[in-house]
């Protein structure tokens, strides 16, 4: 996509800081850590994040950090294309937008015009919003959908704060999804059966080709195993399944590695789902990443969601489920299609 000889600034070489949170404790902590970065004061994060004609892919080569105050809602109902694992009140929280990882197929590339990362430093406001919601009903909340909180833990400490918040609110169950290798967080927080750590797994060849900067399969499994040994509920997400010519062999090998490196019987559950993405997002992805086979795949448009051809999607999902059923209880396997246990 770009010349190898171009040299980019280091990640977070430029930090944009909203005037409203310049003196926030987290802002000061982050800025102290990046003493060599150029700090640019801004009035509102959208002045930077929402500029027209940004190039997401190029910006990933030298991501800027934007520290902002979230003044609107930060808790949203879960999207229909996402797995709710049988919970009635499924929401997701958006305290950080974008991710330091660079997955080729990531929906964030279709959702946002910018590849830069926004951290809403006022997480306490999100907690207040959530407490109001908890007064109405129990909540199942995915806190790491718009980012990878574990990967950004040393920067923000948000995963720890979410885990502690969930521990002290009995009607709240959270899921922290990640592709990180980091295990240190499990030393810092107390286990809680309502704090689910979810590891997205892919075969190594998919990781290498399409999930840049993320942990290897083995590293993810080691981290997941560590979480489980510390007493946390762990979920494995075989979602999204990404098609490749030898998908059957690749996913068989992945599951074999998983079985060798983690006690599958002790998992809370697993999810299975082939790649799917809203039509508007794939349009942008295809325009921005013309050389990506995952983006350019000739998907079928099913009610505004682009999916693999039905036969292929079924074949891939059912194959993986058939392998999983040999290793664990059927009740623990969630397939995305109809949100019912397979």
């Amino acid at each position: 996509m770009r010349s190898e000889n171009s040299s980019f600034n280091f990640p977070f070489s430029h930090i944009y800081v909203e005037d409203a949170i310049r003196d926030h404790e987290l802002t000061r902590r982050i800025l102290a850590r990046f003493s060599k970065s150029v700090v640019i004061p801004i009035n509102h994060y959208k002045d930077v994040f929402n500029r027209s004609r940004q190039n997401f892919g190029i910006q990933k080569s030298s991501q800027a950090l934007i520290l902002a105050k979230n003044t609107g809602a930060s808790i949203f109902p879960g999207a229909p294309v996402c797995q709710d694992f049988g919970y009635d009140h499924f929401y997701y929280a958006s305290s950080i937008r974008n991710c330091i990882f660079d997955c080729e197929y990531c929906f964030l590339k279709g959702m946002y015009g910018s590849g830069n990362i926004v951290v809403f430093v006022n997480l306490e406001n999100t907690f207040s919003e959530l407490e109001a919601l908890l007064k109405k009903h129990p909540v199942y909340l995915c806190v790491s959908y718009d980012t990878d909180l574990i990967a950004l833990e040393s920067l923000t400490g948000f995963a720890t704060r979410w885990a502690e918040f969930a521990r002290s609110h009995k009607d709240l169950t959270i899921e922290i999804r990640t592709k990180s290798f980091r295990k240190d967080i499990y030393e810092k927080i107390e286990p809680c059966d309502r704090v689910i750590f979810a590891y997205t797994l892919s075969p190594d060849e998919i990781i290498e080709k399409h999930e840049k900067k993320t942990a290897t399969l083995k590293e993810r499994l080691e981290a997941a195993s560590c979480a489980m040994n510390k007493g946390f509920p762990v979920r494995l997400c075989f979602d999204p399944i990404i098609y490749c010519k030898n998908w059957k062999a690749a996913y068989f090998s992945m599951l074999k590695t998983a079985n060798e490196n983690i006690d599958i019987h002790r998992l809370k559950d697993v999810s299975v789902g082939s790649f799917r993405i809203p039509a508007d997002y794939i349009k942008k992805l295809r325009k921005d990443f013309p050389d990506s086979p995952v983006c350019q795949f000739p998907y079928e448009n099913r009610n505004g969601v682009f999916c693999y051809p039905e036969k292929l999607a079924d074949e891939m999902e059912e194959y993986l489920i058939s392998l999983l059923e040999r290793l664990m209880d059927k009740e623990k396997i969630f397939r995305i299609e109809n949100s019912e246990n397979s």
Partner: protein
Amino acid sequence: MFYFVCALYAEAKPLISALSLRKDAFSCPYDTYFSEDSSVVLAISGTGPIAGAAATSYLLTRFGFRNHADFLINFGSCAGNEPGLHLINKITDDTTGRTFYPDMLYDLSSCGLPSSSEKALVTVPRVVSSLEDPSCLYDMEASGIYQAASHVLSPHRVLFLKYVSDSGVDAEKTITAEKLTEDSGKHIPTVLSVLEKLAEACEEKPFIDEELLVSTSLALHLSDTLRHELRQLFMYAQASGTNIKEILDALDAEGKLDVSSKREGKVVLDEIRKQLI
């Protein structure tokens, strides 16, 4: 290709000389200079944000700016307290209060522009008599140039290089055309170094064989919708490293491309898809 917008000829003169630019002999709304190999084009905009915006629009549209390969650079003088050449990371339009942010992706420290050279700049529509914010630079064009450019190009494809000519006070009338040219000349090696560095930053765009796409669409009697599907198959083949011509040649050898209706064409389209996946 590099597109330069300079407010005054006096500022541009050393650059025109260093890059051996020739004046466009045709009648142009702005004095325009270009290099023999057409890798650089430069326009003299005149002073003020509107003049800067108008010249930018003229330049980008006349020469067909390519957003994946070209750069727009505003080079010129400004008022400020810190001498030297500066890379601008924030532009505030003094009239409207709006702010603009060019992307700061490229490490230009090896060109003589370390991060410490970066500054915020305020664009004012008149000559300033003092620096309201001493930490900022003041010019008369940048916000107009950025706004006009943002309709065409990405924020990482525009750079503002500003050299300090004065501190906003010119009681003794020392800021002459000669002085602006002399000061500009001091920074030309840095500008040339930036050009050398950025020349490497081309985002190559993969392309598909449009001729083959059209001829196949016609042969298969495809409707607009199915033609779009075929284009997507071409894109996927390109991205996944599959030679679609080989697939089409094989189908042709079997006589399958010789169809007489849309319906038959769709069957062949499905066959191409099947072979690709």
